[in-house]
């Protein structure tokens, strides 16, 4: 097992080639096959019979359980406090604090944006990680056809691109030419104005991703790749998540109000860069889903 240097051992451990340590204490004698076990055909028939009996009562049990669940939830829900009253227990001092002090403490007048980027910023950090993981797992699932080697995949993608170039969809292209500038402009407006008007990182990011999807669908992935190549995509996504993690990692070390300095207060707090980072991550995620579903790679 010991291959000599620690480097070699580390490489073996990282690559997963190390054999698990043998921990058997003793080896038992396997019992003799008695003739009371069913033969394979009888076993098969018994399995099918059991499956059919299960399938007979599974729908009935599902309906009964669902009806019971809905009845219990309805009985709970009609006893809840009345809808829309101002003195519900949910409207306590936390929401009053957020509404009263969000302008001066976070620099955002939109209470929802100030809340998700500053007061509850770690929730948004976890959600950005979930988006990152989702794109990574969909990439793993949809990489290429089973048994298709690398060059065949490249040739197939080039053939699809050429087909897209030769036979463009005229209606889609003309309406996309009309719509895409407005969509991108609106997306940038919603992203950058998330603090003083409804919007923010998530909304602007999804609209931006929608604009990119429309461009890729109308004009082809090749033309999109001219200004948004795969390397730029990876860089934007990774950089956004790393920036967010780094800034919030600083908060863990210095405490909740630790990052105050002259430059930051003149910039209006940390909300705007974080907003941009979240918006870009969401846009890249949404566009990445479309590209993976349509092509098999980004």
């Amino acid at each position, binding site marked *: 097992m010991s291959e000599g240097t620690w480097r070699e051992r580390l490489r073996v451990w990282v690559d997963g080639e190390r054999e698990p340590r043998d921990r058997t204490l003793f080896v038992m004698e396997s019992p003799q096959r008695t003739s009371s076990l069913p033969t394979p055909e009888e076993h098969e028939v018994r399995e099918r019979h059991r499956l059919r009996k299960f399938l007979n009562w599974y729908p009935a049990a599902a309906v009964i359980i669902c009806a019971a669940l809905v009845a219990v939830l309805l009985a709970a829900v009609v006893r809840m406090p009345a809808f829309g009253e101002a003195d519900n227990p949910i409207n306590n001092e936390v929401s009053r604090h957020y509404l009263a002090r969000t302008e001066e403490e976070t620099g955002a007048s*939109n209470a*929802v*944006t100030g809340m998700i980027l500053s007061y509850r910023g770690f929730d948004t950090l976890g959600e950005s990680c979930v988006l990152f993981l989702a794109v990574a797992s969909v990439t793993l699932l949809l990489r290429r056809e089973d048994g298709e080697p690398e060059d065949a995949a490249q040739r197939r993608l080039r053939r699809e691109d050429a087909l897209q170039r030769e036979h463009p969809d005229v209606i889609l292209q003309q309406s996309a030419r009309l719509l895409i500038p407005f969509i991108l402009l609106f997306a940038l407006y*919603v992203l950058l104005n998330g603090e003083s008007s*409804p*919007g*923010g990182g*998530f*909304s602007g990011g*999804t*609209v931006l*991703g*929608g604009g990119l*999807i429309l461009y890729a669908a109308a004009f082809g992935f090749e033309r999109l790749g001219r200004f948004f190549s795969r390397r730029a995509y990876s860089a934007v996504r990774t950089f956004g998540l790393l920036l967010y993690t780094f800034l919030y990692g600083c908060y863990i070390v210095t405490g909740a109000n630790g990052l105050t300095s002259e430059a930051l207060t003149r910039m209006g707090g940390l909300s705007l860069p974080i907003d941009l980072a979240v918006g870009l991550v969401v846009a890249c995620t*949404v566009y990445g*889903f*479309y590209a993976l*579903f*349509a092509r098999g790679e980004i």
Partner: protein
Amino acid sequence: MIALEYFLLAGLLVCAAAAPLFRRLLVTVIVYTAFSLLLAILWALLQSPDLAITEAAVGAGVSGILYFLTLRNIHAMKGTHDV
């Protein structure tokens, strides 16, 4: 306003109950997109404009497109899938 809320909530229930009952998967996805549109209008009525923008972009835009691409990849665009 209350009449509009009742109408939208009833529409939500009708869309959700009807969506999985169709034989053709294309119709299921379209009815689900209509469900998402009604939900986006409800968010706007509940005075949450962030949710309205996000639901309109995500539900009809992104989620609908992903469903249609899946339908194309499993060859179920015309009628039920033929296996």
